[in-house]
């Protein structure tokens, strides 16, 4: 290694050090605000699927972690009144026309849907995006339903012999959403005990 390449390396290293320090400083200044924003986002998406009237705690910070079907960790947010779990909410996902559709599902202690909202999806604008509450009220039709009403074999879009309308020009998106909610409710029935036990050891609420 000759002297000039050491010199160039030192220059590059000095720039890396300088900008690294600037970024570390910015990160330190913004980290609390960003955590607060993330918390607000989560609170907003939970407020849409768990009515305020059924809880007096903050579901964002009252969570249990379960294993989902694929063995991945699933955070379950819990609504409590007094010390009794009145509802839970967790993320579910289905496969739509353009990949994964992420939804937040709120379920009451009796297994009824409290509400569903789309969190993220890549469906075709103008067709598949009618699952968003901003674009239509289709997603609200699940509220109040549960497995048994309608029976599980009717938890499908009409085209597949179920009872839920697809929208014109899009079948795959609603099929994915209906399927995800059905699976989400089955998951609730299977893990009801774990989810609604008021004294499950608390996992610490880390907002990332």
């Amino acid at each position, binding site marked *: 290694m000759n002297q000039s390449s050491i010199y160039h390396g030192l220059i590059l290293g000095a720039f890396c050090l300088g900008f690294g320090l600037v970024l570390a400083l910015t990160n330190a200044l913004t980290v609390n605000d960003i955590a607060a924003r993330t918390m607000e*986002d989560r609170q907003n998406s939970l407020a849409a699927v768990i009515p305020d009237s059924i809880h007096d705690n903050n579901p964002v910070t009252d969570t249990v972690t379960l294993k989902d079907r694929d063995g991945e960790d699933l955070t379950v947010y819990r609504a409590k009144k007094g010390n009794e779990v009145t509802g839970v909410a967790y993320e579910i996902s289905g496969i739509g026309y353009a990949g994964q559709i992420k939804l937040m599902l709120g379920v009451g202690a009796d297994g009824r849907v409290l509400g569903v909202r789309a969190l993220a999806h890549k469906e075709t604008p103008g067709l598949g995006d009618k699952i968003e509450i901003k674009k239509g009220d289709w997603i609200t039709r699940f509220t109040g339903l549960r497995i048994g009403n309608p029976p599980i074999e009717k938890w499908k879009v009409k085209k597949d012999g179920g009872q839920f309308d697809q929208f014109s020009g899009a079948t795959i998106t609603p099929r994915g959403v209906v399927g995800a909610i059905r699976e989400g409710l089955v998951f609730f029935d299977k893990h009801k005990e774990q989810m609604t036990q008021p004294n499950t050891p608390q996992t610490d609420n880390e907002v990332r």
Partner: protein
Amino acid sequence: MATGYGRIARDGLWDNNGVLAMLLGMCPTMAMTTSATNGFGMGLATAVVMTASGGLVATFRGYITQEVRIPVYILIVASMVTLVDLTMNAYMHDLYKVLGLFIPLIVSNCLPLARLESFASKEPVMRSLADGFFMGLGFTLALTAIGAVREIVGAGTLFADASLLLGPAFKFLELRIMPENMGVLMMILPPGGFLVTGLLVVGKRMIDVASGKSIQMAGAHAV
């Protein structure tokens, strides 16, 4: 031999426009112009990064040796992008939710890098700041124009959600040009991005030809 400010402004906004003349930065151009508001927001974020990195490179140009200049430029652009990303996430969160996914794309945009190499590495600080600013502004105008055309034809609206980006005072910008469901969906999908960008590039050249300017080959001024 420093470039005059008038020249810098004309180059950035029209003559040597990053998108319409040099055809640089096509990735954010295609991805973010599904509406005029999105294009405008992406353009502004890019303009901030370009101005800051132009000024920094010009400040340090005496220390940046020829051999390590490209990694240093990338380091500077990436640092500025991260700064904008963190700051927007913390203090302009609604806008961040719209643009957040695309801010990191500014690093891979070759327009900032091209301007650092061809301008900021040779010119004084103030002029480099001006070049970054006007090139960024030209980028913003081009993205807003492409977004506006795609939005009007594709969704029938103009500047939808502008109040999310600029504050409630700008609610008046949000127009509905055509009734809902009249739009040509394809214009919002990726093919529409290529079509509209192509048509606007042609339109710019036709104006240049009509006004008797010589046509510069695209990219002739890049790197």
